[in-house]
């Protein structure tokens, strides 16, 4: 058990070391001095001048802000009202929330969580182990969910309803289908739809009208795809939580760049994610900018492996060889937006094997591979995605890069008209081995070439489970590789860091060989806020913890 905890701690400490601030310490000190001088001069500060509402800019939501429905965008809304057994911190480690502590059997096949006493829902009713059991079993029951459960895929081959056991009034046990050393992440906010809901509650569309959960904030008003206002949940378990703002409002923006003028004029206090170029341009005396690694989160480019022009892996390899990764990271991302990726979700984690060679731009090799594959002159293909600042830029990079080996890419970016994810759906297809989904340029999971956003996790398990394994329900490339599946299972079941590293190397090598996805970079999440706003915490998922937010 200790080895498992050490492993998780190691992941966390590695993430801490990567975390860095954009601004220099001198600038921060100068800003603090200015604030300090202003205070000395008698200008009112502190609680007497506290703004009553904290306004936060977020990205646009795609699905309803309900636990069984949530996906990109709406997870921010849930992060304020929801409470999970554990919470992913910005450095990738976990913080106990509803669970006070956890242990596992030595083989990591059974995990026991001790539940905090005195936890209540925001309607004043107590949160019990029965509610937790319901939360973790209802998602498997289609009669209850009416077939809508986007979170179910988190637990494929890991957990089923029978494995969720109430031990006593303060203890719950998860008996897994296979060992997993990182299981606490599977009950964390990284599984953003798995906030604890009341027993027998319907967690699908409609839940958002009440948002009864156990998080620090309570919903006051919610306008779908526009804004949500919260106030203190007076029943919150942490009685030390005394918010410095009366209300918090999350406001959705299609592009973070459009939120910038509102930040600059004081209409918005904080932006949850913005582009490097926008962050760099902000006045350092007035605004604080922070970056934190988002694991393997953000934009992944998929190339359909079982249908269409990318079926031959040599073509996928050739495509991946066209990209100038360091140039993009240093230039477009200005060095602060991310780090060079090697087409694997393992790269950002400290269990990655750094001896695996980095893929670099090599047009000669790419052209040779295209010729070998029988398409020396390339072909035409659409790239489907939805509009977002970073995705738009990545799509342009793919178009320009692929053109160098004759692959003529047409960008089909949904929401470039200001809408969002109407054309490019996230609706899951059953991406099991065998069936070949009919080509559908409108769908993330059935398009030949596309980009999709993933939130940043502290461990790679969910990417592996849902995107890379042949059984994954969110597998855009629909890779069906026994070698990859075996390597993933080995990684998931590994308990020691050494064993994880060994498995990781296999995954990295198969990733480069098969190249179902291009991960030209791994992202950093960039946030910006008023200089005098302190205590805003955002994790790699983009989830907010505004409990300690206050004006300096």
């Amino acid at each position, binding site marked *: 058990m200790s080895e498992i905890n050490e492993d998780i701690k190691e992941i966390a400490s590695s993430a801490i070391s990567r975390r860095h601030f954009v601004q220099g310490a001198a600038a921060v000190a100068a800003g603090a001095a200015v604030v300090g001088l202003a205070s000395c001069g008698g200008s009112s500060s502190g609680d007497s001048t506290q703004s009553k509402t904290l306004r936060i800019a977020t990205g646009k939501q795609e699905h309803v802000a309900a636990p069984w429905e949530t996906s990109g965008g709406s997870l921010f809304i849930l992060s304020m009202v929801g409470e999970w057994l554990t919470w992913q911190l910005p450095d990738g480690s976990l913080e106990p929330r509803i669970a006070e502590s956890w242990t596992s059997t030595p083989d990591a096949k059974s995990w026991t969580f001790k539940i905090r006493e005195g936890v209540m829902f925001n309607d004043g009713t107590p949160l019990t182990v029965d509610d937790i059991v319901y939360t973790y079993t209802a998602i498997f029951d289609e009669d209850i969910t009416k077939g809508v459960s986007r979170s179910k895929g988190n637990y494929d081959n890991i957990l089923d309803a029978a494995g969720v056991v109430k031990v006593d009034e303060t203890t719950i046990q998860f008996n897994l289908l296979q060992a997993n050393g990182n299981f606490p992440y599977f009950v964390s906010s990284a599984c953003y739809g798995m906030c604890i809901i009341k027993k027998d509650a319907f967690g699908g569309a409609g839940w958002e009208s009440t948002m009864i959960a156990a998080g620090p904030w309570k919903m006051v008003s919610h306008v779908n795809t526009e804004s949500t206002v919260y106030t203190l949940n007076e029943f919150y378990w942490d009685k030390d939580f005394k918010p410095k703002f009366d209300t918090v409002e999350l406001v959705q923006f299609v592009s973070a760049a459009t939120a*910038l003028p509102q930040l*600059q004029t004081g209409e918005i206090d904080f932006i949850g994610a913005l582009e490097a170029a926008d962050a760099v341009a902000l006045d350092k005396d007035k605004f604080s900018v922070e970056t934190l690694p988002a694991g393997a989160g953000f934009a992944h480019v998929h190339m359909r492996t079982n249908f269409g022009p990318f079926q031959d892996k040599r073509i996928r390899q050739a495509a991946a060889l066209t990209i100038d990764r360091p140039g993009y990271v240093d*230039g*477009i991302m200005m060095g602060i937006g991310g780090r060079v990726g090697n087409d694997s979700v393992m790269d950002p984690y400290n269990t990655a094997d750094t001896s695996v060679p980095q893929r670099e731009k090599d047009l000669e090799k790419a052209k040779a591979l295209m010729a070998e594959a029988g398409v020396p002159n390339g072909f035409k293909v659409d790239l489907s995605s939805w509009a977002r600042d970073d995705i738009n830029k990545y799509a342009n990079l793919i178009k320009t890069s692929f*053109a160098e080996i004759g692959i003529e890419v047409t960008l089909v970016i949904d929401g470039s*008209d200001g809408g969002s994810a109407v054309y490019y759906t996230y609706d899951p297809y059953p991406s099991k081995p065998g069936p070949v989904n009919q080509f559908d340029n409108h769908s993330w999971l059935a398009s030949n070439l596309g980009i999709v956003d993933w939130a940043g996790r502290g461990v790679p398990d969910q990417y592996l489970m849902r995107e890379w394994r042949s059984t994954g329900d969110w597998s855009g490339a629909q890779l069906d590789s026994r070698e990859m599946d075996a390597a993933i299972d080995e990684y998931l079941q590994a308990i020691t860091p050494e064993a994880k590293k060994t498995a990781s190397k296999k995954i990295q090598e198969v990733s480069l060989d098969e190249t179902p996805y291009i991960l030209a970079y791994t992202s950093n999440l960039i946030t910006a806020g008023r200089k005098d706003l302190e205590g805003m915490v955002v994790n790699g998922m983009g989830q907010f913890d505004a409990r300690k937010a206050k004006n300096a």
Partner: protein
Amino acid sequence: MTESTTSTIANKSDLERKQIRRERISLVLKDKTFLVGAFILSFWIILAIFGSIIAPHGAGDQDFNFVSHSPTSKFFFGTDANGRDVFSRVILGTRLIVVMAFSATILGTVLGTSLGLATGYFKGKFDMIVMRLVEAISAIPVLIIALLAIAALEGRSPTLTVIVIGFVFTPNIGRTVRAAVLGESELEYVAAARLRTERTRHILFREILPNVLPPIIVEFTVRLGYAIFAIATLSFLGAGVEYGSPNWGSQIAENWGNIYSNVWWPTAFPALAIASLAVSINLISDSLLEIFEL
């Protein structure tokens, strides 16, 4: 009237028409407003034809060492957030907007003229029914119709945009032409043509059409200006053209958010291009309107 009388009327009107045409051309060529407009328009047409030779960089070429870089001697209009040369993209975007605007306006003018000739000449119930339909369509803003049509057809191709805008312009042009034809169809030369038992097609296209050309030409220039704005707006909204194309409207849509980061050049130069092209056409249109005394 005898056949020789009708022939004399036709010859006379032909001579008069030629005389008027010569006078008008002379006036047009002396009009400074027209000349300024024509000069600017010619500039853009030349860029549309030879843009790919003139542009120093490709539309998609990225230079990662010059991202969101202000104008320099290497990049006259600076670079955008993707490291692409704004100068080249403005030049290369010219062809798309010029070809699309002219094509859509020509389509609208051909269809509208045919509609106006038919309704103005035949009158009666046919005219009444068609004109009510035209009025109903004209009541809906052009952009709304275009957006609805493009969304319904799930198309983002320039061809589809041209067809949609052309159809949307048809009623307005048809109404203008009809008004002119109503007046012309009562004149002697039309009656003379009927007496000569000329075919309807001949009367419409050989007799009446040349006499209603001035309002059609003016309407064409007015619609051309509208077409430029419509295409630029649709591109800005993401409808009509591929995302990331060097179309001026798309360039503004891609870059306007960066204005707040003081990166104004990728937005300002395409916007100036749209403005100058639209102004040039409006100058021509105003000049023709005055000379044709419409």
